[in-house]
């Protein structure tokens, strides 16, 4: 019971790190980016390849995954994505699905279509059990504990940057109303490029962390696209707590659903999402006042 909750939280935290970049880009430029999962896949493959072929330690791989995805993200943003912001949503959907298709086929070509296996370092394997004798046994895999710790630290960091720094207030202003923000002398383009880079970087990091939990194969961007979008749609795009709560909810619902009713697991998640979206089309946790 508690173990399930624990796994669900780990899963949810991972989803949050993967999707938070998507939330901000969607909120900032109203851009529907279905190719976000490709950055996560990039981070995952990079980590696997570095660890297997060059024996780079796991902890070195994580920042590398972040950096490379961020750089690729900012390059793509400057060259391709920029031209898409003004276009209708249909164009954006087609464009980003096209990118996702290309990423899937390229990964297949470069790394093969099989599932990649991640060799975790020894200190992350194993499992600690608490309350063994009580009815609420809590079994914590060390790796999941590590994921929760990293993601929680990142979340706190993000929240700090957003709420207490100058960049954060610029970003919030740009999300609320880009036109007025640029009127106030904020260079929305630069803010956006930086955010896009960080968002892609975080997705890459999430992909690297999640390669073991979520599984990594070339269809990753399409398989998890739905989950990222659920987090964004349910959590809303105006704050960072909304997506966090949505991701945790999704993670717990998914893990619990798959455990208790194995064949209907995903069914529950989708039904829940549709119900929530019909009930509150703008997302569950929308801050009042901002331009939605």
């Amino acid at each position, binding site marked *: 019971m508690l173990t399930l909750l624990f796994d669900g939280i780990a899963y949810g935290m991972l989803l949050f790190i993967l999707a938070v970049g998507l939330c901000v880009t*969607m909120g900032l430029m109203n851009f*529907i980016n279905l190719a976000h999962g490709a950055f996560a896949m990039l981070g995952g493959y990079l980590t696997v390849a570095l660890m297997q072929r060059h024996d780079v330690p796991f902890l070195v791989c994580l920042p590398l995954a972040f950096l490379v995805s961020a750089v690729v993200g900012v390059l793509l943003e400057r060259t*391709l994505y920029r*031209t*898409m912001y*003004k*276009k*209708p*949503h*249909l*164009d954006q*959907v*087609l*464009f980003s*699905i*096209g*990118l*996702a*298709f*290309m*990423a*899937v*086929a*390229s990964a*297949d*070509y470069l790394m093969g*279509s099989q599932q990649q296996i991640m060799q975790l370092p020894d200190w992350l394997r194993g499992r600690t059990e608490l309350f063994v004798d009580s009815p609420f046994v809590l079994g914590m895999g060390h790796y999941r504990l590590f994921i929760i710790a990293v993601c929680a630290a990142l979340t706190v960091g993000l929240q700090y940057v957003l709420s207490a720094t100058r960049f954060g207030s610029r970003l919030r202003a740009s999300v609320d109303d880009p036109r007025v923000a640029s009127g106030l002398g904020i260079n929305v383009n630069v803010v956006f490029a930086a955010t896009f880079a960080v968002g892609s970087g975080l997705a890459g990091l999430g992909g690297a962390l999640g390669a073991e939990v979520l599984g990594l194969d070339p269809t990753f961007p*399409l398989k998890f696209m*739905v989950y990222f*979008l*659920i987090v*964004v*749609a349910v959590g809303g795009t105006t704050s960072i707590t909304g997506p966090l709560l949505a991701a945790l909810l999704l993670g717990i619902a998914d893990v619990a659903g798959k455990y208790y009713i194995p*064949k*209907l697991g*995903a*069914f529950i998640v*989708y*039904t829940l*999402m*549709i119900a929530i*979206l*019909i009930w509150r*089309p*703008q997302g569950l946790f929308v801050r009042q006042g901002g331009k*939605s």
Partner: protein
Amino acid sequence: MNAHKSLLQAARWRPLELAFWVLAFVSPWAVAQHALIINEIAIVALFAVSLDLVLGYTGIVSLGHAAFLGFGAYAAALFAKHIHPDPLLGLCVGVVVATLLGAVCSLSIMRGTDLTRLMVTLGTALILLELANKYSDLTGGADGLQGVIMGPLLGKFEFDLMGQVSAWYSLTVLLLFFVLARRLVHAPLGGTLKAVRDNRLRAMAIGVPVASRIAVVYTVAAGVAGGAGALMAQTTGFASLDVFALDRSADVMLMLAMGGVGWLYGGIVGAIAFKLMYDVIAGITPQYWTFWIGLFLVVLVMVGRERLIRPWTWFSTKRQEGAV
């Protein structure tokens, strides 16, 4: 010329259209060895026309249109297997069932932004996929529903291996639904749909009942997609889980984008182009054809969808407006 006349003018059948349909109906006979692919094209064209009603004419971005295709396909296949093998009855069942589903689902797309609708439509298709997977006793699960044997068409024409009968059958149904859709978009109802697409707020202000219009067109489009699904199940004698898959919805959206949205022939032209392109690319690199499809999509959007179907604008320097 007054408004009434010019509207009638726009709705009139042109000689070129008639020529196109004559050509389409002659094709299974003229190139009999390609009858199977003509059948496939007719079916996906019908599916694309259905999406065009929703996406091109009403402006609802749907990434889950395969829900209705799949529902129609399973309904027709199950009907043929368990109740009666007559194709026309099965087609009706597929259409009616999908229409009902569309009427229910239309309630879910009334509110929210494009993203919300995208997610809700996508979610509907995924839920149906999960259900079809779960009730494997009925649907055959991941193995697909096998053993669907169709009776002869109109009691006379057996479905042959060459696929000529299926091709004519699908083309006839396509023409039927196409005429219906054509009537619909040229009727005043179609005009109000375009108004809803272009500016929902203003449409509401001039008294267009937006919610009921969206419900009507979504329901009709669902029925047409169900018809396409029924044709698919009947002419292949098979229904599998991939009829609900995201790829289907994405592919049909691509076809429509290739042919041009908001133009009924766009779906048909796109379906022909897509199938031919798929055949060529998959012939060269069967494993990596998605890469080229993806590249094509990216390039298509970068140069502008409007320009691709109008080659005479390629070299003009006039700036194109992005909005459709």
